């Protein structure tokens, strides 16, 4: 099973939570590069930080699309 398929198997709240955590990690890279503008922090912010942020947005968009397509809600424990 591909990574994409595995991500699609996740429930909407799980995807949103993953997106939130990923975005926080990406933001941490960016903020660190501003506070400590050394070579590696700047490079990491502009590569890893932006990459993680992009992945977070992708997860969010996937979650919204899955939600809009009437995907059955996750089981009660998710709420």
């Amino acid at each position, binding site marked *: 099973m591909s990574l994409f398929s595995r991500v699609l198997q996740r429930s909407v709240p799980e995807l*949103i939570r993953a*997106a939130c955590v990923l*975005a*926080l990690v990406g933001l941490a890279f960016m903020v660190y590069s501003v506070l400590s*503008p050394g070579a590696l*922090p700047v490079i990491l912010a*502009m590569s890893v930080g*932006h990459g993680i942020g992009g992945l977070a947005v992708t997860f969010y968009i996937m979650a919204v699309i899955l939600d809009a397509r009437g995907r059955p809600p996750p089981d009660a424990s998710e709420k």
Partner: protein
Amino acid sequence: MAAAAIAAAILITYLVRKPPLDFRVKLWLLMGLGIFPAVAAASSTVTGMQATTEREFCGSCHVMGAHYADTLDPKSQSLAARHSRNPYFGDHSCYVCHADYGMYGYAMTKAGGLRHVYYYHWGGYGEMTLEEAKQKIHLVKPYDNVNCRQCHTTTLHDWRRVPDHESLKTELESNRVSCASAGCHGYAHPFTKHGASAAKAHAERAREPPSPVRSKDRDR
């Protein structure tokens, strides 16, 4: 920073409260995951790129310590130090002189900077002593006179009346002779040159009283 803080506040609030995913929450998440992080990413990129053009940033790697110290020395008469005292170069003197110019100059300069980072962390520069660095680290390609000519246009009378300039015009344009060479305007960083003549020239320049403008520098 403010955008990152607002985005983080929205995301942490969502993670803690876990509200049902209605339209209002989706909009908030769009702000927290899309809009504010995009602003934070753009501003951190601009800030980071700006920081990489500062002299202090270049001097933050220990192998550039001698270069950095020389630019800060008010008595140094090296080409780099004299230019660093010029307010038009100032805190960005390394970048202004070493940046590539032209359509893709900025991108090419930053790509070259990535190579420096690679060499520093994985290519052995990081383990070098300062003395080793002064001996072993060199420009990857000959210094381009075009960089000098960004300011020194070489079209004014003061420049053209110097016989050496006129006789070497072709060589200067084709980079076969560097403006920053012994016998011309001197090495930019003479302490990295290890010939006896270079050391002597550097010592002589260091003894010279600083003059605000030399005749051969008035060639803009």
